[in-house]
């Protein structure tokens, strides 16, 4: 079983931005987007997220699995919960409102009534802008950030060395453990073990995976003692750690951090000082349903 990271160097603008600045921007956008339901602010944030995403020069082929997961999430949240059942809008949109089809509608020779309101439909648009903005920024991280950079990035962002090194070490173990998993799977198959997805009940599936998970886990634990001893012999944790992969801020990284702080401050100011925090429907939207 071959494990490969989704990252590859594309010589895109994103490849030249410091990972620390990228995380600061990503979290500033997350907090900005979740501060307000105002459509104008959300549209602005969505535009920023789109520009940010384009800097990664990602193709559909690269990111399709991520977008598939996001599509399932968006379908559940927006189509099922907000538009069809209305539950997804219950926390923000007030009860009542103007019906999209006040007299119902005819389909396949039958008459249907549907309680979808204009306000709920606009909320679905706002929800789409908010969740897509966050998704655009966060889904691209695995594809555009070198896995060697995570440990040093979190260390430089203030995470204790031991925790940052744990993260670094776990990246290194993945290919080895994936190989152990494949060896164990082959060995169990040679003994007549079958792991057919889609067959049997949930309990039967649980029973099927036990002969696979238990030996892989126990092997990993037994081998970890040797690694810990080797690290101790080399004086792990005796002094401040240095990192092979070095990070360096450029002027554009500082500019990005300044922009991130400004974006967050402006959003907070508009949301709390100018009362633009709550959900509202623009007048032109009502005009579409008159």
């Amino acid at each position, binding site marked *: 079983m071959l494990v490969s990271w*989704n990252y590859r160097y594309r010589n895109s603008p994103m490849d030249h931005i410091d990972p620390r600045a990228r995380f600061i921007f990503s979290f500033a956008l997350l907090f900005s987007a979740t501060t307000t339901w105002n459509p104008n602010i959300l549209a602005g944030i969505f535009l920023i997220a789109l520009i940010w995403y384009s800097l990664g020069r990602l193709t559909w082929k690269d990111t399709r699995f991520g977008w598939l997961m996001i599509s*399932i999430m968006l379908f559940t949240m927006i189509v099922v919960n907000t538009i069809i059942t209305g539950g997804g809008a219950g926390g923000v949109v007030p009860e009542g409102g103007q019906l999209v089809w006040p007299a119902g509608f005819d389909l396949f020779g039958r008459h249907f009534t549907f309680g979808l309101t204009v306000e709920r439909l606009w909320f679905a648009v706002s929800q789409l802008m908010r969740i897509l903005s966050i998704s655009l920024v966060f889904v691209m991280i695995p594809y555009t950030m070198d896995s060697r950079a995570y440990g040093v990035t979190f260390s430089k962002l203030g995470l204790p060395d031991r925790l940052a090194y*744990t993260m670094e070490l776990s990246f290194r173990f993945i290919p080895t453990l994936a190989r152990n998993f494949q060896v164990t799977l082959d060995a169990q198959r040679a003994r007549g073990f079958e792991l057919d997805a889609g067959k049997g009940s949930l309990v039967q599936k649980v029973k099927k995976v036990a002969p696979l998970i238990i030996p892989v886990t126990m092997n990993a634990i037994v081998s970890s003692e040797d690694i810990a001893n080797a690290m101790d012999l080399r004086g792990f944790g005796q002094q401040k750690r240095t990192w092979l992969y070095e990070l360096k801020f450029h002027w554009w990284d500082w500019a990005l951090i300044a922009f991130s702080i400004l974006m967050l401050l402006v959003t907070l100011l508009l949301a709390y000082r100018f009362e633009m925090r709550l959900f509202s429907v623009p007048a032109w939207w009502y005009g579409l349903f008159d």
Partner: protein
Amino acid sequence: MEKTVTTGTKKNIWAFGTNQVVYAAIGAALYAVLTWAFNIWQIPGAGNVGIRPAIVIPMFFGIAFGPIVGFITGFVGNILADMLSGYGFWLWWDLGNGIIGLIPGLFSALIYKYNEQKSIILGEISVVLGSALGMGLASLSERWVSGADMNTVLVANFLPAFLTNIVWGLILLPLLMIAYAAIVSRSGRS
């Protein structure tokens, strides 16, 4: 070097020495690899939630090596699994997975022999509590992010994740604890 005491005397569950660094890294990598391998069992239609046999890994690492190791196994492991699968970076679900490992880790202070009935019952309680708190926090964050009401959060996010997690945890954790007890006694670990 601080060692995790697996049997016998009183444990320091908050120790984080070289052994714990390695256990946490191994646990996170194992959780990521197994999650990635089993990702074919995604539940269609349930937002953000997949059937994950590997969820037992942070629970077990918490029980065996303490709350910090359990938390890192779940938190970092989920980040790595999402990276391998190309799903992105979802901090609130990563934190939820960390809590699934953290709570059993708190129970590890009460567990000395992994194959005893009392230890297994404590492990099972920690599975339910950890899953409830971890998935509860992650699901509630969807209220903040997507503005969904409590009912939607409960039905679309919390219940599918919580129920599948406890099914895997309740069945697989005792098996892992018994297997680990055999390793502990065979290798003479203290």
